[in-house]
């Protein structure tokens, strides 16, 4: 073998060694990787085993039962709260209706009172009382009777749906009207159905009082066709009328009298000074 040929063989041997070394390193790497993967598989198998142990059908069912019970409790709480809110709403609605009714009643009472004291003219006062009885109470036939303190007799001075002249003069203490004027108590007929008008026996008799002093009465014989019975506010209106109408009538009468007297005195003075 020549020297040139030996060099070539040596070179080929070195190359082979290099390849062999790389193959050996690669094999080492593969073995390491294999080792690592085996470890991973073992870990995963162990984890899976634990999970399977934990997720046994009994424990899962138990958990679900607890959750269902919890949800049932929550549902019951929500239902109870809804019931509470509904009850509150109903209460608010009822209170709103009550307040509206009360507001309406107060408006009626305020306006009735305001109007009654808006004038000192006797005829106007009677007109206002008439309007209140028609528009706020809903009466169709009624009369306002005043007591003559000299004769102790009640006489109608105004009316609606009837001629005041039709209403008989009533002595104090006579019949229902006279009795109410004497005692100062309100009278409401017990049964309105089938009532036939009797001018001595009204459906309602309200004494007009200044403190305990009766100056007359309001007698009602018939309500408007659409009004079948008295409402709560009517009794309050009657109470208001009993007091305010009485003072309004009394003040206007006093004022008329003083005006008349003043006019007489003025006339007399005019005569004296001429």
């Amino acid at each position, binding site marked *: 073998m020549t020297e040139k040929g030996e060099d070539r063989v040596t070179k080929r041997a070195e190359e082979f060694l290099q390849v062999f070394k790389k193959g050996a390193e690669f094999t080492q790497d593969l073995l390491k990787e294999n080792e690592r993967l085996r470890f991973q598989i073992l870990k995963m198998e162990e984890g899976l085993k634990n999970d399977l142990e934990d997720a046994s059908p009994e424990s899962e069912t138990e958990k679900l039962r607890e959750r269902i019970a919890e949800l049932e409790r929550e549902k019951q709480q929500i239902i109870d709260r809804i019931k509470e809110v509904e009850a509150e709403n109903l209460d608010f609605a009822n209170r709103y209706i009550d307040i509206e009714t009360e507001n309406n009643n107060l*408006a*009626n009472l305020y306006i009735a009172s*305001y109007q009654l004291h808006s004038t000192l003219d006797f005829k106007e006062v009677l007109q*206002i009382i008439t309007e209140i009885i028609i528009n*706020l109470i809903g009466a169709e036939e009624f009369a306002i009777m005043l007591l003559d303190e000299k004769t102790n007799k009640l006489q109608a001075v105004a009316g609606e749906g009837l001629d005041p002249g039709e209403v008989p003069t009533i002595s104090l203490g006579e019949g229902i009207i006279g009795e109410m004027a004497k005692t100062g108590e309100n009278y409401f007929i017990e049964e309105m159905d089938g009532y036939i008008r009797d001018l001595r026996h009204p459906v309602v008799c309200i004494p007009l009082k200044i403190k305990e002093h009766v100056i007359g009465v309001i007698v009602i014989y018939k309500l408007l066709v659409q009004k079948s019975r008295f409402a709560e506010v009517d009794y309050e209106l009657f109470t208001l009328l009993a007091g305010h109408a009485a003072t309004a009538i009394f003040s206007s009468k006093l004022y008329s009298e003083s005006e008349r007297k003043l006019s007489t005195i003025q006339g007399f003075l005019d005569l004296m000074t001429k």
Partner: protein
Amino acid sequence: MSPYKVLIVEDSPTMRQLIVFALKRVRGLTLVEANDGVDGLKKLSGEKFDLIFTDINMPIMDGLKLVSLVRNDPGYKSVPIVIITTEGANEDRERALALGANDYITKPIQTARIVDVAKRLLNM
């Protein structure tokens, strides 16, 4: 400036005051009062109204005559009219509605009912 103008035609000052008192609770209403039908017509000719409340029994000109005249006026053909009256019989109601009234309220009045009717007819 209130968007709706309401005319109240009523001869009784007590009733007028009560209706005004009720309607003052509704925001956005300008209220104008008239003593009877003739006074009501005068006010209607002077300005434009969106709603009319009228009594039936009034001196000089009653409410039904007013309803009839208002309905014959092209400018007020579609303006809602509400009757407030003591006449509670069905035939009275039917007569008023036939003449062109939109609603019929009987006395004794409830302020809440007046407010409800006004809001409904004005689409408030």
